[in-house]
């Protein structure tokens, strides 16, 4: 009889251990929704700034997308080891910058890297320097998960190749001051005009 009791007890202990193992993480999810920042609470439902991702900019400072709430934004994704498409895309954006006037002084250019391993903040800073990207440019480094999530709301497909490079869609987006996507343009060697026009509507 004693043995039965002991055995049942052991059974109970094992089951409670199992139950514990399967208890879902309580704090993880809303996975990416920030509720604590007052800035984010007032954002519209379509704002991509609702993510609470922590990025690093090219100066190795912590950065959240909501930090640029209030600024019109041109955004794309790239990686610095990209030999062909990304330099062309950055060049397309530089052409946009050249078209901007005094009324556009708040416009930010945001480049988010696919390459979380190689595109460290230091590397991004070096790239910004070589490419002559000034104060209005924000280059972002993040982890693989947040890169995936942001790519999904931007609708930019990508895949890492075995050689470490990324195959990716070439898409530029214009975001309004609240971080909602108002315009997107696919392709390379695009004319600056459509982007400037989209920006004019969200100044």
């Amino acid at each position, binding site marked *: 009889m*004693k*043995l039965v009791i*002991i*055995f049942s*007890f*052991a*059974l109970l*202990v*094992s089951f409670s*251990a*199992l139950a514990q193992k*399967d208890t*879902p*993480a*309580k704090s*993880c*999810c*809303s*996975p990416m*929704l920030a509720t604590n920042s007052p800035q984010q609470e007032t954002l519209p*439902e*379509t*704002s*991509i700034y*609702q993510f609470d991702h922590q990025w690093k900019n090219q100066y190795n400072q912590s950065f959240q997308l909501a930090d640029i709430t209030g600024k019109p934004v041109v955004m794309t994704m790239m990686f610095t080891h*990209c*030999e*062909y*498409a990304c330099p062309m895309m950055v060049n397309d954006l530089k052409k946009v910058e050249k078209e901007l006037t005094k009324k556009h002084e708040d416009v930010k250019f945001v480049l988010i890297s696919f390459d979380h391993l190689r595109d460290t903040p230091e590397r991004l800073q070096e790239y910004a320097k070589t490419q002559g990207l000034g104060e209005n440019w924000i280059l972002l480094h993040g982890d693989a998960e947040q890169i*995936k*999530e942001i*790519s*999904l*709301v931007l*609708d930019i*497909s*990508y*895949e890492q*190749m*075995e050689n470490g*490079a*990324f*195959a*990716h*869609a*070439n*898409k530029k987006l214009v975001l309004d001051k609240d971080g909602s996507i108002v315009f997107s343009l*696919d*392709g*390379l060697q695009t004319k600056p005009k459509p982007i400037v026009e989209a920006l004019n509507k969200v100044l």
Partner: protein
Amino acid sequence: MSIKKTIWFLGCLFIGLQLPAQENMQMIPAGSYKPFIKGAAEKIAIDAFMLDEYAVTNADFLVFVKANPSWAPDKVKALFADSGYLSHWPEDYLEDKSLETNKEPVVNVSWFAANAYCKWKNKRLPTMHEWEYAALALPKGETDSAALTQINNDWYSRKTPKQAEVGSIYKNQYGISDMYGLVWEWVYDFNSVVSNDDSRNSEDVIAGLFCGSASLNASDASDYVSFIRYSYRGSLKAKYTTRKMGFRCAKSIQ
């Protein structure tokens, strides 16, 4: 050490050893496979991983929604799910007891919702390669790949199949149920472009699938169902929900 303690200890040990490492998950052994799309013409190596035996059910998902109200149908943000999100649930789903025991796969969920569910379970969505690799396994007891083709063909040719319950279609050799025949399933990297070219975009890939070049790109042109599955994935966006799309979770082995 007293006898009592020893027995107690051995009892625990014995029971501990009997329990599966993860309830309702099965281990998919390491291996390699050749993806349907030729983009990566070589075989892709897959590490061993754990995969849910069944697709997540309405009952499972209800528990998640109750624990995470931001994923309730009336609370979810438009950025993370379109208006079809959980639209098959009754409005009074919190009172409706039938959902609590519903064994049909949950559908009308976005990638973001599926991803959040898996994270909540301390799991993750399987990658596309993991999913495809696990799905290649033949039904238990079968040695002829025609059995799998038959399941797929039956599924695709059913007109408006009534939603079946999880576990009702077939179990494969890894002990995983219904990889085909039940619902489409989200994978973590459904938005990957499948191409070797650094500059191509996803639209090119989809075009490649639909026009004549498909027969050149596909590793097995006769595999019509894979063709549909791959091109369907390419047409999705992460906030989309459809009444034929569910998911299951995976876990890496540390």
